[in-house]
């Protein structure tokens, strides 16, 4: 998986204020409503994909692309929520974004044993440890987002280390989601950094 968020040279203060005070109206509610239905469809597809993988050992490509598209959409939206990207996030599964990108390599084979393991014990060995650490990390990232908001407001720049932490939070969450959605067999690492061997 390769998750990238472009660190812009400068950030628009006007957009920052607009997103903060009216973002719920023109970004989050419209996107949230549509994404809710998309997520419901995604859950149905995941259920179907589970059985297909169990019998064939392959993730149906069209379903995989839909899930990838939905995750890209979530990333576009999250980047705006965390103020690490400007611009209006595009609607749609196949839409692209100039500031964010997510590439998930299609696995030719999916380990069926791991699929069952994730279904029955995923809550214990994936959600519990990662959720526990991500929770603490999220508190810190929340503080950083708040601090970065003021920095962007006064300077128009998003400090490097704050940007890396916020992007890292997203990257970590997406890795966990991908693993639990059977889209990769690689157990998510306990880091938000981009790993050397990670490809798109």
């Amino acid at each position, binding site marked *: 998986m390769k998750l990238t968020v472009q660190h812009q040279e400068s950030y628009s203060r006007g957009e920052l204020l607009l997103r903060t005070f009216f973002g719920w109206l023109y970004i989050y509610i419209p996107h949230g409503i549509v994404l809710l239905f998309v997520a419901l469809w995604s859950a149905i597809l995941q259920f179907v994909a589970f059985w297909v993988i169990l019998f064939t050992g392959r993730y149906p490509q069209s379903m995989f692309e839909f899930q990838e598209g939905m995750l890209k959409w979530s990333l576009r939206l999250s980047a705006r929520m965390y103020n690490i990207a400007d611009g209006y996030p595009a609607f749609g599964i196949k839409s692209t974004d100039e500031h964010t990108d997510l590439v998930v390599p299609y696995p030719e084979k999916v380990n069926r044993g791991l699929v069952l393991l994730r279904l029955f014990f995923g809550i*214990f*060995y*994936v959600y*519990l*440890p*990662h959720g*526990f*650490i991500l929770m603490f990390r999220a508190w810190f990232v929340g503080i950083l987002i708040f601090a970065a908001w003021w920095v962007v407001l006064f300077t128009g720049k998003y400090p490097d280390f704050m940007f890396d932490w916020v992007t890292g939070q997203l990257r970590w969450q997406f890795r966990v989601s991908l693993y639990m959605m059977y889209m990769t067999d690689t*157990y*998510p*690492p*306990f880091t938000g950094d981009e790993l050397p061997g990670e490809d798109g």
Partner: protein
Amino acid sequence: MGAYFMMFATAAMGIPLPILNLVAAIIYYYVNRDKGRFVQFHTLQSLYSQIPVTMVNTGLVVWTIINFVRDLDFTSFYWGYLVMAAVVNLVYFIFSLVGAVRARKGLFYYFLFFGKLAYYQVYRIRPEQGPSTFRNRPPGQ
């Protein structure tokens, strides 16, 4: 109360061999179960709840030893399991502490799932002790 502290008392020994916690809990249960149903309930609840915790800890110890002996990498999967085991132990620790305090005060305290299990096992009405069994009947009956 002592039943819950058995876990902590044996924890030092139990780190290299987690099964010792369970053995201690079993011995403690059989030694103390005749002291009344209340004591039996708490010791049994402590014993039951130690079974999954011991299994998780044993898995961790075995995995760690294998990694060291075979000089394998400590993968993300391993660290995930380690954090999970830490959280499970933390939850167990909190429940045990509350259980011990409540038992000391002579009160019941029910763990998730295991509380109900222990309660029904200890307080169920056995056929030989059912309401139809009368002793010391009045003369002539």
